[in-house]
């Protein structure tokens, strides 16, 4: 099947590129671009699903590429898992984009299908050149979409930051691939010659930095809450739902596949540390952001952290020869890739709908959307069940597997490792609770309560196709939550490919099991019990309780009904995003995010309003990015000084450099 699927996939990629060209020539044909990409992506999703069910792999060499070398494509289960996610989310995003929500969105049209095609190319690549081509094209296309509101300073600075980070990840990934495989660019040669010693260490560091910065792993996550929200909503959805996953795919591909199985146990350590930091930082920042889409972007950091932790445990377990545990951890990571990809896409689309309908992305300008936008609100609630990891949602199922993996991980041994794993489990639990808090804050402030502005009070539901796109993702979320075994069954070939060990005995008849003999999580039974409980409660109420209800003004602890000139009551008296976050800001964020509250209280007699301002600073800023900025300044002034050297000084500098380089070559030759 794969042999047939690969050329078709290539055709889909070319078709998407063609749509991009059409979109560039004729902006008015936006509907054609989005319809075309919806059709192509749904075909791609179907194709990946079929190819995943019928196992097999295929390879294809293209007659273009580096001089003397063909571009290699390959289709194997690992790539298919990610391709399935990519095409499913891209289909929903294209459907959502059919309805244009802002005039500026037209500027992003040509880049949208190219962005999807670039991600697919990265996933299909079977040599370093193709993979890097796809990866960089993905970065560039998404960079262009971030700029779609280039009149705004914020968009421009976010795009510049994003471009810098993309350059950084290229600067890390290209040497990483150069270190692999002794100079040959194709993956088969790299697999045959797995790196050892310092070379393996360098590959690990470079890949974790290069792909990790794209995925949003702390401390390289700073750009993500700036750049993801700046793109049009359907593209933000793809950036958070699919692009971060493509970066994680590169990590899995290089570290699990290309580096071979004989890597030492500490290979997982950087992923665990960065994953834990991302999980907590992302979860906490999701509670502090005031922009709907920035909240979701921050929670992406948290979920990427979870996936990285799963990958790290899989490494530790593989190094310790605990194949079932490694399979469980990798299954948890890949399952979370799928669930997070789908529910985060749903949430971003919902946020886009709320932005379009309610006129703002800021939490303090929304509120009460549930009355005017019931379908969007229902979809957001469904997505938030996944985000908050509540049973029987999709997020709970995948995080359950991850938690089982970390609960079993102390078997690897070593008191220091066990203690660190315990701390890791604590941080994961904290991140889960933080995500739930962020989900409640987002729903409660933006969608429930009373409208905070007249614009929000007059919000309008989005149109049919946008609703259909969201409802389709809700159905997918429900499927993934209720049938986790089916999804794990789809993922299993990829796990088998990476670890040469499957999930035998860990996928039970009705649920997921951490071990062959131990009972586990039976999603369907829990969901039916919940449904039965609901029905029983309804029956009891119907039999014994009084029917109907009356309406009256909110009681609010005995406060009087609002006066006539404030038809909604005073909306500012309800809790907003900043007030909801206040306990967490005082309890956690003062330590982690250096949160400071400043009260500007007017003197008695002064009639101006008092103000409370909050300042937050991500720890990566003072510890990493600010020093780098200072070094750059210094390096620039140094380079600047070199322009004013006399001719003799310039010549001697050049001569010294030449001697140095020759000496370096001599040393390397001898080595």
């Amino acid at each position, binding site marked *: 099947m794969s042999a047939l699927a690969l050329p078709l996939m290539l055709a889909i990629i070319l078709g998407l590129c063609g749509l991009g060209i059409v979109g560039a020539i004729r902006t008015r044909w936006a509907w054609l671009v989005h319809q075309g990409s919806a059709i192509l992506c749904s075909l791609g999703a179907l194709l990946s699903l079929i190819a995943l069910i019928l196992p097999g792999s295929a390879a294809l060499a293209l007659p273009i590429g580096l001089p003397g070398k063909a571009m290699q494509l390959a289709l194997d289960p690992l790539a298919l898992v990610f391709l399935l996610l990519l095409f499913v989310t891209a289909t929903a995003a294209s459907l959502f984009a059919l309805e244009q929500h802002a005039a500026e969105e037209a500027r992003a049209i040509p880049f949208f299908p190219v962005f999807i095609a670039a991600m697919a190319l990265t996933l299909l690549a079977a040599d370093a050149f193709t993979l890097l081509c796809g990866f960089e094209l993905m970065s560039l296309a998404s960079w262009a979409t971030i700029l779609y509101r280039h009149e705004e300073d914020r968009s421009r600075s976010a795009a510049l930051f994003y471009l810098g980070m993309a350059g950084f990840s290229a600067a890390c990934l290209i040497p990483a691939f150069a270190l692999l495989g002794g100079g040959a660019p194709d993956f088969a040669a790299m697999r045959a010659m797995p790196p050892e010693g310092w070379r393996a260490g360098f590959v690990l560091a470079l890949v974790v930095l290069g792909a990790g910065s794209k995925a949003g792993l702390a401390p390289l996550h700073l750009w993500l809450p700036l750049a993801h929200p700046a793109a049009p909503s359907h593209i933000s959805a793809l950036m958070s739902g699919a692009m971060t996953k493509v970066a994680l795919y590169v990590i899995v591909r290089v570290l699990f596949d290309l580096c071979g199985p004989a890597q030492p146990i500490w290979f997982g350590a950087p992923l665990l540390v960065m994953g834990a930091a991302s999980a907590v930082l992302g979860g906490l920042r999701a509670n502090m952001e005031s922009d709907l889409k920035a909240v979701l972007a921050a929670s992406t950091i948290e979920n990427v952290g979870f996936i990285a932790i799963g990958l790290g445990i899989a490494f530790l377990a593989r190094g310790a020869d605990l194949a079932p545990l490694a399979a469980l951890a990798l299954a948890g990571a890949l399952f979370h890739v799928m669930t997070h990809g789908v529910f985060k896409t749903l949430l971003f689309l919902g946020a886009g709908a709320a932005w379009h309908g309610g006129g703002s992305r800021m939490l303090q300008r929304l509120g009460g959307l549930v009355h005017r936008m019931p379908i969007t609100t229902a979809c957001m609630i469904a997505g938030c069940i996944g985000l908050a990891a509540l049973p029987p949602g999709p997020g709970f199922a995948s995080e359950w597997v991850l938690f089982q993996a970390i609960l079993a991980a102390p078997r690897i041994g070593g008191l220091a490792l*066990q203690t660190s794993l315990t701390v890791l489990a604590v941080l994961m639990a904290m991140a889960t609770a933080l995500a739930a808090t962020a989900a409640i804050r987002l729903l*409660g402030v933006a969608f429930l309560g009373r409208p905070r502005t007249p614009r929000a009070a007059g919000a309008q539901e989005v149109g049919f196709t946008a609703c259909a796109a969201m409802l389709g993702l809700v159905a997918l979320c429900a499927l993934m939550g209720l049938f986790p075994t089916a999804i794990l069954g789809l993922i299993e070939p990829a796990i088998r490919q990476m670890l040469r060990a499957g999930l035998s005995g860990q996928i039970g008849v009705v649920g997921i099991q951490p071990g062959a003999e131990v009972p586990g999580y039976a999603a369907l039974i829990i969901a039916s019990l919940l449904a039965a409980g609901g029905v029983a409660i309804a029956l009891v109420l119907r039999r014994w309780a009084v029917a109907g209800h009356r309406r*009256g003004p909110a009681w609010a602890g005995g406060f009087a009904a609002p006066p006539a000139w404030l038809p909604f009551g005073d909306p500012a008296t309800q809790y907003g995003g900043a007030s909801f976050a206040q306990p967490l800001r005082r309890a956690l964020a003062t330590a982690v995010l250096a949160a400071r509250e400043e009260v500007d209280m007017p003197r008695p007699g002064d009639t101006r309003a008092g103000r409370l301002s909050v300042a937050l600073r991500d720890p990566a800023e003072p510890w990493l990015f600010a020093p780098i900025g200072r070094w750059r300044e210094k390096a620039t002034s140094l380079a600047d000084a070199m322009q004013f050297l006399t001719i003799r000084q310039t010549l001697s500098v050049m001569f010294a450099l030449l001697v140095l380089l020759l000496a370096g070559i001599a040393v390397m030759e001898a080595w």
Partner: protein
Amino acid sequence: MNIVISALLRLLAQGLHIALMLAVAPLLVGLIRLVKARLLGRRGPPLVQPWRDLLRLMRKQPVLADNASIVFCAAPAVSLAAIVVAAALVPSFALGMTLGPVSDLLVIAGLLALARCATALAGMDVGTAFGGIGASRDMTFSVYAEPALLLVIFTLAMLAGSTNLDLIAAVLRDGALGLRVSLGLVLVAILTVAVAENGRIPVDNPATHLELTMVHEAMTLEYSGRNLAMVEAGKALKLLVWLSLIGTIFCPFGTAMADNPLFWPLGLLLWVAKISFLAVALAVFESVVAKMRVFRVPEFLGVALLFGLLAAVLLFVSTGMT
């Protein structure tokens, strides 16, 4: 034949268990109120007063706030359903009931989180300051309570080899593990978490109507009639779930097996005794300590976190899992 009979017995035990939990939960609240009243020198309401309150509330037509949405009406039902399922999964008088194989501790924690999130959303729905303050504080507490609870689960899973509550309870009941320091530390941690999760003194005062001290009460301030009945029933049942959980794990002696009905009466009697003891202890504890400031609660739960961490590390050291 034997298999069929034992399956039927398990099912019967499960049904009995659910009925028992539902019937006893309001009585438990009544008992705590009674003991507290007596400690304060009052006569106190009769034991069945919470049941009477529930029935009275069911007969009253609810008043909804003008802008209450469907979320407001659905939340108590969702929350109660989640707690009822959790109650069905936590064993009371017998182990090995029909739902034993799915009674995973992480799932129970997830169901309780579902109940909490539903209530918090309801608190935000009407758009009053009280609902928001309660939701915000309750979710903040959970950020500290969940890690502590996870450490408890972590330690128990390490001891029993699974996160399945039925298995853990069976292992602890057989006494093969003996007394362990880790178990003691874990007990302190889970007691602290239980106090916070149920909104008891010193974290929250269930009897308060003073706005600034409310957490759980604030979220449900707008409820009346049958909706309030669901909220109250859910609150009572949640307390019973936590006490049952603590009893099953830390005092598993005398718990019957579901397929051996001869021991059911003994198990039942002992369960009532355990729950009553815990309830009286809670009432006494609530009468002698003062409520703490909201911003002290993270420190209070931090102690639970620390105890849980100590328990896990001690377990690593003592079992020689290194």
